């Protein structure tokens, strides 16, 4: 019950009074939240950063057993023309035994004819541990080795040994022609 103005004059309803307090508090919270949102949001990627999103790569210059390294969104993209030995090695693995199970085929995007070109491996050349760039033709699995904390990747870029949790990431890409791919 209201502790003051009882009797004559305006009667105050306690539930109404509480409602006003709660509503005021809620409005303040909403206002503070709305004000905080731009402050938090500004930290995210800016429009110009997002815009630098996609690139086209001419892969005709890559020769068998070689690797092209291109910068995309500040990260290197590996385009590797794999040898038959590397392809066979990647296929011979028992997928169920992998830390991040993926068949070699699942790591490719079909070209415009709907076929998979297993010679040409396209992936983000960034170790999934802490983002260093693995060294090619190194490590225990015919693939890559990350010098920072010792992760070994196989010839398909899949994690085989060391602290990294995931396979090296396949970026979104598509074939524009036989020799040109578009990333992003």
């Amino acid at each position: 019950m209201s502790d003051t103005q009882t009797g004559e004059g305006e009667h105050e309803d306690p539930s109404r009074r509480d409602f006003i307090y709660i509503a005021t508090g809620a409005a303040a919270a909403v206002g503070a939240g709305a004000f905080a949102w731009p402050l938090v949001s500004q930290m995210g990627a800016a429009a110009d950063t997002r815009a630098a999103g996609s690139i086209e790569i001419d892969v005709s210059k890559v020769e068998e057993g070689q690797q092209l390294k291109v910068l995309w969104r500040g990260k290197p993209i590996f385009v590797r023309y794999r040898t038959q030995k590397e392809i066979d090695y990647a296929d011979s693995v028992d997928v169920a035994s992998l830390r991040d199970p993926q068949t070699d085929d699942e790591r490719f995007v079909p070209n415009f004819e709907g076929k998979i070109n297993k010679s040409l491996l396209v992936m983000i050349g960034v170790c999934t541990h802490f983002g260093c760039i693995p060294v090619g033709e190194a490590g225990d699995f015919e693939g890559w080795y990350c010098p920072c904390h010792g992760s070994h990747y196989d010839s398909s870029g899949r994690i085989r040994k060391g602290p990294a949790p995931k396979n090296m990431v396949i970026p979104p890409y598509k074939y524009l022609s036989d020799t040109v791919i578009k990333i992003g």
Partner: protein
Amino acid sequence: MSGHSTYEPKYAAEKWIDKRLPIVRMGVDFMAFPSPRNLNYWYAFGGILTLCLMSQIITGIILAMHYTPTVGEAFNSVQRIKRDVPFGWLLQSMHAVGASMFFLAVYIHMFRGLFYGSYKAPRELLWIIGCAIYLAMMATGFLGYTLPWGQMSFWGATVITGFFGAIPVVGESLQQWLLGGYSVGNPTLQRFFSLHYLLPFVIAALVGLHVWAVHHVGQNNPIGIDIKTKEDTLSFHPYYTMKDGFAIAVFLMIFALFVFYLPEALGHADNYQRANPMVTPPHIVPEWYFLPFYAILRAVPDKLMGIMLMFGAIVVLFILPWLDTAKVRSMRFRPTTRRFFYIFLFMCFVLGWCGAHSPDDIAIPMGHGGMTFKWVSRVATLYYFAFFLFLLPVLGWVEKTKALPDSITKAIHDGEA
């Protein structure tokens, strides 16, 4: 500031001010603070750290007047500071070396607190604020190391921000939000500069709380017993200002040795190479003061586990006041715990040693192979956590401590302090 004030304003102006804002009284009482009379040189590091913080803030503000926080110009502007700005070489060197000296002093300060049980009641909050300062220092040190935009700056930033990517579900979005893009770049550098400028003032505020807390509960001392009479104490000034002053001058000589004669000894050659997102240096190492934590991170083969252990190593410091169950503060009266403490100290150095090397290299040769750094760091990591989570709680229960002196004054008289 507990206790009674000794300040008596003499002149009318002093009295006038004292009635309205007793700031002079505060200063006088601060300097006359009754301190235990048996404080040794290990207790000088509080003063040394204050000096370090002031030096870092002053040199930092000056360097910010000449530094350019963009990926194109950051590296060049640091070189310009060292070549063309009058005394720029000195200020840059003082700031870079100063960070190392700051950490050197804070580690000694922390080990001192650990040894004499300065985290025990009623000083738990004092210790926790100290841990918060240490955490803020680590953040500031990391952000600052990014600014010269060399190879180690870039890849250190990439690795450390990668920690956040390990958090399940939100990790990747969180990492992009922190970086302001898909990878470490210009937005990252600019926000790191802004935060690197801000955090030292947060540290200064925390130091204010830390000093407030120590003045409220009083300083601990090497024998760890409470002050009983006025006899047990000395006025902070001139007794400890002069003693600390001498210690500070000695510390400055070590500081000067590095600034003037070994300016690169604590740095890394790779950081004189401009940041290059296409090439990772073959051997990424953090600054020496992070090496023990880096070793803990790499001791575990799992990414998330490694990060959790590393942060856990700092979290245990925060809850230390409740882990140590002993009633006696100072390890002078806890002979068994003291031995385990020395092993702990040694293990911290071992972790630092492991952090500087590749995990798969041989650390201790034995026969054909040997023990790799990974395994050495596993042993040391195990001991680190066992010390806090097992040894301290258990020893507190079972250890038979030596008899405590009746008072500080008596201990000094008997030659025990």
